[in-house]
């Protein structure tokens, strides 16, 4: 009989017979790992992805429930909005064909405009009691749920495909980016909470700067949800503009800047764009950076419009960015970012003093989602 307990009293301790068995087991495990190592690895990776799929499903359901709850509370619909909400969560957009790139930007701009209008109308239908600002917040909230739903479906797709085909490489590519996916999903959950309550998010840093500049001034509404004001800084006429708040909105700053340039017959000394920008790991949140060019994200149509008009009128475009991570950009605004807005105002003043002369006109565009930020 093989002694299970060794002289030391420990189970599986060193004893002659057991040593032989352990050696045999080691050889056997080596041979098994040599031939079936990849299969074992696939099983382990599938187990990890399975856990993430379950967590994502829970997060997707939570954001959807939050959307439903907010819709019912704010919009007071007469019928259950669940079927319409489900339809909106699955809505998609087909980008224009790029084989002939001429006029591509305007085609995309048109598609985006139609999509925005339809989405807003859909929200208004299921939330008839909501005011304009609440409709914007609801729109952003449903967009966050939509993004979460898409993430969940894509991860589930690769998980099931990998499971069905037992393909190491299909599972590997989804398993490798799992930490980034989870980070984004967690940020989207935080964003959904922020939109449901109308809290400012990190992306609103640019809008906050413009709001500080236009505070107490007379505002006028420009086309497509943009507000502008006029103020004097060191003898220069400054026109700050931002998306109309406090509802969640990014507006169409490209169209607004073109309009202001047209109104002033091209006599604009410079355009300063302020936006939140993604920091690199190790960079400090809320740090500022100055540069040249149109600081605006999104699908690129607004940047194109600004660049085109700036080139046509030979207007220099300067950018001031506030650094933050992707997670900080869509989660409720951090104190560092909120305080950085003050510093940006003084940077803008310095830039205006350095690069323009008295009597000049300057546009300051605060880019970003203006949820929770008035004007």
């Amino acid at each position, binding site marked *: 009989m093989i002694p299970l307990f060794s002289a030391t009293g420990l189970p599986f301790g060193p004893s002659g017979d057991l040593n032989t068995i352990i050696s045999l087991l080691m050889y056997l495990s080596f041979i098994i790992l040599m031939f079936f190592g990849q299969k074992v690895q696939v099983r382990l990776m599938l187990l990890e992805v399975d856990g993430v799929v379950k967590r994502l499903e829970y997060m997707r359901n939570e954001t959807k429930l939050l959307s439903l709850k907010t819709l019912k509370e704010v919009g007071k619909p007469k019928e259950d909005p669940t079927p319409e909400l489900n339809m909106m969560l699955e809505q998609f957009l087909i980008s224009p064909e790029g084989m002939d790139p001429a006029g591509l930007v305007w085609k995309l701009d048109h598609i985006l405009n139609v999509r925005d209008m339809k989405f807003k109308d859909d929200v208004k239908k299921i939330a008839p009691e909501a005011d304009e600002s609440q409709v914007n917040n609801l729109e952003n909230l449903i967009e966050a749920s939509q993004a979460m739903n898409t993430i969940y479906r894509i991860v589930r797709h690769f998980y099931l495909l990998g499971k069905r085909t037992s393909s190491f490489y299909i599972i590997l590519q989804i398993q490798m980016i799992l930490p980034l996916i989870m980070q984004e999903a967690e940020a989207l959950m935080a964003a959904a909470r922020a939109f449901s309550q109308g809290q400012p998010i990190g992306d609103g840093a640019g809008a906050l700067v413009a709001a500080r500049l236009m505070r107490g001034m007379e505002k006028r509404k420009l086309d497509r949800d943009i507000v502008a004001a006029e103020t004097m800084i060191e003898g220069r006429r400054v026109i700050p503009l931002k998306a109309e708040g406090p509802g969640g909105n990014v507006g169409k700053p490209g169209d607004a800047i073109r309009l202001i340039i047209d109104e002033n017959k091209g006599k604009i000394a410079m355009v300063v764009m302020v936006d939140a920008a993604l920091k690199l790991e190790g960079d400090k949140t809320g740090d500022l950076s100055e540069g040249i060019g149109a600081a605006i994200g999104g699908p690129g149509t607004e940047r194109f419009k600004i660049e085109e008009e700036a080139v046509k009128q030979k207007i220099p475009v300067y950018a001031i960015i506030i650094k933050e991570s992707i997670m900080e950009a869509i989660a409720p605004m951090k*104190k560092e970012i909120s305080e950085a807005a003050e510093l940006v105002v003084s940077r803008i003043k310095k830039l205006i003093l350095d690069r323009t002369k008295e009597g000049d006109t300057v546009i300051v565009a605060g880019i970003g989602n203006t949820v929770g*930020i008035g004007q």
Partner: protein
Amino acid sequence: MQTRAPSTMYLYLLIAFSIAVLGYSVWMLYTGILSMKEGNMESFYYTMFISLIGIMLAVSSLTQIRRRISILPRIGAKVLTVALCDKCNFKVIRNFATGDYVFKESGKCQQCNETMHISQIYQEEPKKKQD
């Protein structure tokens, strides 16, 4: 629609198992040291090897669990509203209430009775441990 939160039982089981492995490994280490004192070097090397692997695995598992748990409070962080008086700079910091937004008027100043406005809304950072 399924809204059940992911079960935490697996997490507790994992913690219990990791602690059990850690305890057993430490005990093995102690036994190994006793074996060395008795001059049984073969047993000493064997137990040292097994116990160190056990300790490493258990510590690594517990560290990973700790990291997962530390993410949870970050998700539900508190959001604060700062109301400021333009005249006397009196500041009131309170919890965010639905309907608050930056530059909204926020009642009268307790010191000078001037209208206050919301100057900041931000997410409170979780308190870091003082080392």
